[in-house]
């Protein structure tokens, strides 16, 4: 990791088009100004961590919720029983109709650049 010492008002350039300005330093707080092309994502490190942790929590917690109706054979299979009838029923997939991703009310509130 490159470590630089900078004072308020001084600049760090990253590549041709990214500039980080030290706006002010007060106690243990540093205010930074970042000039970057709009397509470069600039987010606080904590946000990445928070969303990542929330995704994990969501995946874990979905197990608390009841599921689609399942056949007795499937339930038996989950419990680890596996006589031949149940295996053959397991081999037959259940046909499902996925939802179309087309929720209408979104349109007005999605701000595009």
């Amino acid at each position: 990791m490159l470590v630089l010492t900078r004072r308020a008002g001084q600049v760090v350039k990253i590549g041709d088009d990214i500039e980080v300005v030290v706006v002010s330093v007060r106690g243990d707080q540093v205010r930074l100004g970042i000039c970057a092309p709009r397509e470069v994502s600039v987010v606080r490190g904590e946000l990445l961590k928070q969303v990542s942790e929330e995704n994990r929590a969501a995946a874990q917690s979905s197990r608390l919720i009841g599921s689609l109706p399942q056949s007795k054979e499937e339930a038996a299979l989950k419990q680890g029983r596996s006589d031949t009838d149940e295996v053959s029923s397991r081999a037959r997939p259940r046909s499902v109709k996925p939802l179309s991703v087309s929720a209408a009310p979104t349109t007005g509130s999605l701000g595009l650049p």
Partner: protein
Amino acid sequence: MVIDTFRFGRLEFPEESLVTLSEGLLGFPDDHRFVVLPFRCESESGGSGPSSLCWLQSADNPQLAFLAVEPHLFFPDYEIDLPDGDARALGLRDARQASVLTLLTVSRGATRNGERFPLPPMAVTANLAGPIVVNMRSRQGRQVLLADGRYGTKHILAEMDGEKMARGTSLEG
């Protein structure tokens, strides 16, 4: 195509209905292909109906399924200012081509921002800071980070009676 899922058993559906998250979700970088399934549960009366909630089931990992919802149904004022980089990566030029899903978490006695907003014993919260935006035409999607600080990762959607939640009966609607 046919996939195995822990929750629903073996499922068959048209391959065209897959949604591809080429960068995965934060924390799940290896899961790219998902299918959006309706949320239907056996109620006490034995019937089941359509619901605004859905499952985002991984087509690659039988165990991975997220409860999700179209956020505007519960948060009508929710606004996403889609960053340029995300719009470009998704090939989105027109907001009408976009669909949004928000992942939900079921929390038990959790807190938000440390201790300031204690949640009820059982609550469903929506992660409005990290919505999944999908280009409906290409079926490519990505988890977008909203960095402006207006939204957090735990917005309360519903408070639940724990027993009903375990049976999944009180989420219908």
